């Protein structure tokens, strides 16, 4: 049982049209760590994330999750990888595609082979973790944006992943919903990789920050020291909000 939830070495990737997105990324995350992945738009953060569950097959380099190699050619291995890596995408409407909340949360564990009462309890537990238990039979479009965000997180938690990856979790949330989401994330016992532009949110929830810029890792260290280095931030189009002090 590996202590490393995620190990990426020398990951490089070029799009089919020739554009190089990643130039050799090294990143390793231990179990229980919470890491913020920061960087300007176009840095390659989403490309990196899509490598983690094999949606983008590894062209060059190596990605392994909880000791298991992410190998695009091995369908069985990919299937188990996708249950170990829980990706919450930015738009909850892309992620909630079943008729009811309960069925959406059940989708992941169902594909993992759970049925009957095991499936039901996985769904109930996941919804409880995000505080959305009463909405189990509602259609997703009856929910507010913040509620849909939380359900999207539940859909991934139900698979009991080894690592939770969130893409811009706090975007478009009103302040109260943002705080509720922060409380939920804090309460989870999980390894976290959070891609975000919301530096205060990252500071609140993560201990470590990695800056990805132009396809390479430009910084990797305790979040306080990364965010305190204003020259470093500025060089990569990052800034703390006015009036925010660490």
């Amino acid at each position, binding site marked *: 049982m590996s202590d490393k939830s995620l190990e990426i070495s020398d990951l490089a990737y070029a799009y089919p049209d020739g554009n190089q997105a990643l130039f050799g990324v090294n990143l390793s995350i231990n179990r229980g760590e919470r890491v913020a992945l920061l960087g300007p738009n176009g840095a390659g953060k989403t490309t990196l994330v*899509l490598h983690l*569950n094999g*949606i983008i097959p590894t062209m060059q380099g190596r990605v392994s999750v909880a000791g298991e190699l992410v190998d695009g050619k091995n369908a069985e291995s990919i*299937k188990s990888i*996708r*249950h170990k*890596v829980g*990706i919450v*995408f930015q*738009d909850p*409407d*892309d*992620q909630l*595609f*079943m*008729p009811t909340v309960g*069925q959406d949360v*059940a*989708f*992941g564990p*169902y*594909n*993992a082979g759970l049925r009957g009462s095991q499936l039901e309890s996985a769904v109930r537990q996941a919804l409880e973790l995000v505080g959305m238990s009463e909405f189990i039979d509602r*259609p*997703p*479009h009856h929910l507010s944006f913040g509620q849909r965000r939380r359900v999207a997180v539940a*859909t*991934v938690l139900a*698979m009991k992943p080894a690592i939770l990856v969130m893409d811009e979790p706090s975007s478009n949330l009103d302040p109260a919903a943002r705080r509720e989401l922060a409380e939920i994330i804090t309460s989870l016992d999980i390894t976290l990789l959070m891609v975000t532009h919301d530096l205060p949110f990252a500071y609140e929830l993560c201990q470590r920050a990695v800056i990805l810029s132009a396809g390479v890792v430009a910084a990797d260290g305790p979040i306080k020291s990364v965010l305190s280095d204003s020259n470093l931030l500025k060089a990569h189009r990052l800034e703390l909000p006015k009036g925010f002090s660490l």
Partner: protein
Amino acid sequence: MATPFSNIPAYCAYFSIIWLALILAKIPPLTVVKRSLIEIPFIAFALLMPFFGQGERVEFLGLLLYQEGIEAGVGIIAKATLGVLTAILLSATTTAREILRGLEILKLPTLLVQIASFMLRYLNVVTDEMERMRVARASRGFQETGIKHWKVLANSAGALFIRSYERGERVHLAMLSRGYTGTLPKIERVSVAKSQILYGLSLPLSAGLCLLISISI
């Protein structure tokens, strides 16, 4: 619908059963009337029938109409009305999801069920987007008054198509990320109480009963 129109008592009975069901279901009469408007093309067709055909002619309001045509025409109106009222009863009392589930049980091909299912889920996402585009256009002074403006509308429709297509791709990625391998989860069978089955069968059973009675009289 299979009953020959000559069996008038049966048809009267059918109509009363449907009306009773509509009343019991508490469907507002205005809703029924508005949804029945779909029948208008059929009525128009039926009204034309008495003017064509062969055989006996009957005089009616100064016009010479074909007996056969009249019978056929009235038969069409009666059957169409019965069909429309039954469809209204179904659509007003059953959610789209349940109808889809029913069609799935009746062995409608899985691909069609999946397509219909996703359409139901994403229809208002797409219409919301259409509305936002309309508001954005109108906010820059656009008024769609004539054929000159169709080009703008066509461009918007094209943009909407591309956005919907890309959303489809993102949804597919999300599905893959949760282990999708080609089949959607089947919804567990909901157990139905005997009373509900009897309740559901009451309509066709009473219709069948009326038919039997009318034949034997």
